[in-house]
């Protein structure tokens, strides 16, 4: 059966040890975590976790059921297959020698990202976007020389009807 990426959005009690319960569930049962983000929601008692995992369909069903079984999990939504928006933020430190500086800034412009730190031999860029956009900018920056990268992993939220 085909293994595909699934994005799960999970509301949990904002309590010590909850992240460990979820991470432990994934590692203990051999499930894959591609990325994981967690932060408080507007209700300080509840946090939202966004997990990207690779699994086939029966397995992702099992993952959702296992998550729901945890006492501290309030709700599990699978966003994959629904209408949703996803973003990831990356900070990319690139080598910026004089001969490349103009080229890098052109890329910054095209991808609508920001330079957040500058030095004689580097730029640090802040990029947000979906997976494809990040992959594209990374491939363009690679020849220039990527010194370091920090990524948040994907966060996502469902789209509501436009209304009107």
């Amino acid at each position: 059966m085909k293994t595909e990426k699934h994005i799960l959005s999970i509301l949990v009690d904002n309590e010590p040890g909850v992240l460990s319960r979820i991470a432990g569930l994934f590692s203990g049962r051999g499930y894959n975590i591609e990325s994981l983000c967690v932060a408080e929601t507007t209700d300080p008692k509840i946090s939202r976790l966004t997990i990207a995992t690779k699994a086939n369909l029966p397995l992702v069903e099992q993952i959702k059921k296992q998550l729901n079984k945890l006492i501290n999990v309030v709700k599990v939504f699978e966003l994959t297959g629904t209408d949703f928006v996803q973003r990831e933020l990356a900070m990319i430190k690139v080598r910026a020698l004089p001969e490349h500086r103009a080229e890098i800034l052109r890329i910054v412009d095209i991808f609508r990202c920001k330079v957040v730190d500058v030095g004689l031999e580097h730029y640090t860029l802040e990029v947000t976007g979906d997976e494809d956009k990040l992959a594209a900018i990374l491939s363009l920056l690679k020849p220039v020389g990527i010194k370091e990268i920090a990524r948040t992993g994907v966060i996502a939220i469902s789209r509501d009807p436009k209304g009107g």
Partner: protein
Amino acid sequence: MKLTGAQILMKTLQEEGVDTIFGYPGAATIDIYEELSKTRIRHILVRHEQGAVHAADGYARVSDRVGVCLVTSGPGATNTVTGIASAYMDSIPLVVLCGQVPTHLIGNDAFQEVDIVGITRPCTKHNYLVNQTEDIARIIKEAFHIARSGRPGPVLVDLPKDVIKRSISYAPPQSLRLRSYNPTYRPSKKQLQKVVELIKQAQRPVIFAGGGVILSKSADRLTEFARKTRIPVTASLMGLGAFPGSDPLWLGMLGMHGTYRANMSIAGCDLLIAVGARFDDRVTGKTDAFAAQAQIVHIDIDPTSIRKNVPVSIPVVGDCGLALDILNHLIDELKLEDLSQKRQPWFDQIENWKRTTPLAYNTQCAMIKPQFVVEKLYELTRGNAIIATEVGQNQMWTAQYYHFDRPHRFLTSGGLGCMGYGLPAAIGAQIACPDQLVVDVAGDGSIQMNIQELATAVQYQLAVKVVILNNRCLGMVRQWQELFHDKNYVSTQMEHAPDFVKLAEAYGAMGLRAVKPAEVETVLRKGLAAPRTVIMEFLVDPEECVYPMVPAGAPISEMLL
């Protein structure tokens, strides 16, 4: 009203109806014990914390109450882990209370400190570290609620010493509200109607009962269902007792050491109705070949059990008892035609399997056959004893040759397969049922894993009986070595063992031994009649194997006979 944490704990435990605690004191729990002595709760002092958990497990299984343990921090807590893991696998409701170092020392590698909440996270249904005295009452109430509701399981509560000692002005907790925990009890009637349609069409149906039938107290309803629909019944190890072992519809246990007819029925059935089971690998063998011709109906309260291991045609999430009630009701409404005639070829086939390949062993042997001991035990107790087992051959022979007519009579570590379970579980069962005969069927290997609990049995004057099938080896592993590893008996020969009769006497129990088949009945009669703790040792044929056997990973129909 000012109360200390320990006082609040005792108050809450009594409100939850706790009358017995299995435990072992230590520095971190000394204040709790001080308060415990002022209550009517009975404390059973075990000899090892693993014993406390198994005893609470045995107590819970026969009494349908939550078993409670109290242990100290550090090693006291880590010693409970095996018992907790076993209860978790078998869905037994327990609350395990652990002492912990004071909160200001947590994380400092303090004396007898261990992160027991971290350690037991994957083997408890839920667990708690209590950070402040104000939370004790609420957390204890939640712990009992979680342990006994939905699919039951063990819950651990870690209690730091300062949280226990501190006094607060006590306010009773508000009503229990866990917004993220709502087990589904009521099954979908629509799904169950589909099940009835399948039952009407089926030519070769089988019911497969698991431990969930016993946990949901619905053995009588399952029996009614099977008799009404004329469907033969098999069960997993955990499901033994869910259907009367003496009923003509009974197929025997299925799985790795299941009966020939049960396994062949699974392979040949066109409808399998699984109730409260989780399709463990010891039950299914090769999953692709398991009930390959059948539509599978799966009724279980835990959605994760459904479609975890085998594909299911009709999933039904809910309480087994409620589901069986609805099924029985629907069947009454429909006034099903008499199905006996339609099912006759299927019954003939099953009868044929039973006749040609029954459970059997060599009855002409000069040595004692272990199966013979279990058969005699069944006969002499008329199937009425509460039977605990250890793990391995002793467990499988008991499952095969002791026929359980009622639920809550068979205590065994089914999922975890935990040697050393039987004796403490038997002690817990005897505490819960002082007037019943409780027997632990053991091997010479597994009995030595928690033999120290003999002292507990003697101290509390419990007439627990231990039957040791002594084959001088670790029989089940030896059997695998014989069959699959060219008889390379690595480390399975117990070249030295204690003299169990003298050992029993040293503990203040009675010790008896049989070495010849003719002595078996005499020893059993004498041991079972004695109003005290007894070890009965039977020197059995060391080369006896458990048959039938499905090699691990093979289809269930491919049995070594």
